[in-house]
């Protein structure tokens, strides 16, 4: 194996083992959104009826899975991944590695891949179990769905990396991560669906990364094209996050 590989196999295996040894991360990223989707979808009859304010779509087919996918991605992008990176920086793990032939950026790449795979897995499980248990149809516009999913993930991970870059220590990254996650979930429509938001809040939501991502997911799950505004907003936040992360990320 070339020691300077961007994705060294042994490093990836080791990081996966460590990831699985923290069951809380996989619970919050995979178990919780999946359970919420199934429980809320089964328990609330209105979610299974066509809703007038959602253009006649069933919330269980569009809004609910959209929000749960958002929850899963935000959990890994704002909480699990940034705190792992900051703890590694804080404890000198990255610095120690920088004296070996492996490049510290490999750790970052491996972390990104593991967390991205986690949210892909969570999403796949939600689509499959939603289909089997709640009779949620699979996304018909699958390519559009995948495209929105990837763009939204890049956006959220970009912001998460920027957070890891500027946070001075792991306590800060954990509390700031949680502190921005909940308002962003709210703007995404988690507790107040966007069609019910007052006009001014809807505008704020439109320009927030989660509002744009949440609506785009709901659109493609309901077989509508996402709006260009929301795609543009996501591209903007993705670029802002990645530029900030590249500018300020420190290995030690």
């Amino acid at each position, binding site marked *: 194996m070339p020691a300077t590989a961007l994705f060294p196999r042994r490093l990836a295996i080791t990081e996966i*083992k460590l990831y699985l040894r923290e069951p809380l991360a996989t619970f919050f990223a995979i178990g919780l959104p999946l359970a919420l989707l199934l429980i809320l979808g089964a328990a609330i009859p209105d979610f299974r009826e066509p809703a007038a304010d959602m253009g006649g779509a069933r919330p269980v087919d569009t809004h609910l899975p959209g929000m749960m996918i958002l929850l899963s991605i935000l959990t890994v992008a704002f909480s699990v991944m940034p705190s792992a990176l900051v703890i590694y920086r804080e404890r*000198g793990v990255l610095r120690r590695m920088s004296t070996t032939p492996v490049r510290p950026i490999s750790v970052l790449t491996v972390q990104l891949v593991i967390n991205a795979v986690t949210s892909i897995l969570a999403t796949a499980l939600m689509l499959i179990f939603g289909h089997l248990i709640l009779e949620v149809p699979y996304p018909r516009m699958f390519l559009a769905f995948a495209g929105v999913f990837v763009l939204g993930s890049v956006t959220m991970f970009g912001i998460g990396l920027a957070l890891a870059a500027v946070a001075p220590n792991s306590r800060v990254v954990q509390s700031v991560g949680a502190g921005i996650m909940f308002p962003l979930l709210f703007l995404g429509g988690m507790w107040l669906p966007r069609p019910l938001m007052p006009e001014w809040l809807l505008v704020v939501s439109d320009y927030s990364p989660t509002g744009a991502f949440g609506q785009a997911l709901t659109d493609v799950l309901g077989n509508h094209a996402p709006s260009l505004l929301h795609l543009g907003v996501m591209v903007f936040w993705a670029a802002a996050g990645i530029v900030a992360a590249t500018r300020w990320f420190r290995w030690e």
Partner: protein
Amino acid sequence: MEIITVENLHKRYGDKVAITDVSFAVEEGEIFGIVGRNGAGKTTTVECVAGLRTPTSGTINVVADLKQQVGVQLQDCSLPDKLRVGEALSLYASFYTNPASPTDLLAEVGLDPRVPFAKLSGGQRQRLSIALALVGNPRIAILDELTTGLDPMARRETWDLIERIKERGVTVLLVTHFMEEVERLCDRVAVISEGRALAVDTPAGLIARAEGSDRVIFRTTGSVELLKALPEVASVVIEGDLVTVTGNANVLHAVVAALPAGRIADLRTERTTLDDAFLILTGHSAV
């Protein structure tokens, strides 16, 4: 062969000068100590050698591939809590093209591969850190303050380990502020104080430089004024009936010959130690 040469190393962080002027050369196969008290610039010096920091000016030449052939043990570096000892070594071994066997190394440092990092004692963490520095089969091992915080037993075990490393032909660059460690391990040392290398010598050579600091201590009721005139004597300090005479290596003979028999009691001598030598050289003690 000189495997590491450092010439006129100077390192500044903003306005703060960490290293003013440090020069030394390390011979292949020796244990070379960098001694000085905390804040003297020892760690900055070796971190420049290891390529972790860029010198402000000066030259550093290391005759080895910095990443592949230099193993580094740093202060304040830990591993993920749930990473097991064996996994850590296999992981680090995978970074190198020609690694040592993790199993052999673990046997050598006496660690159980199944224990997670969080459950290791301070001494075990240091031994793991040394094993990680050696897992790439390096030509040079840089070890920074590796026995700080260890109990005397663990420290002795670590010293044995470093001697075995040297027997394998590895050049060791050792940062320390323990004079006992220097005397036990180092072939040569650079004494660093306030960012300057004040001397580069063998431990015995440093002691020889401090000649004139052997001490003879005894009790007497009589006068010792005549001692001050002796050529072997550098100083005489009298506290009540306790007399401390400092001088060169022949001071004991001179004192005994000069004073009438029966006038002195409780006589003992103290040879110049490396601590004395360090004190004389730098004007302060190492710790």
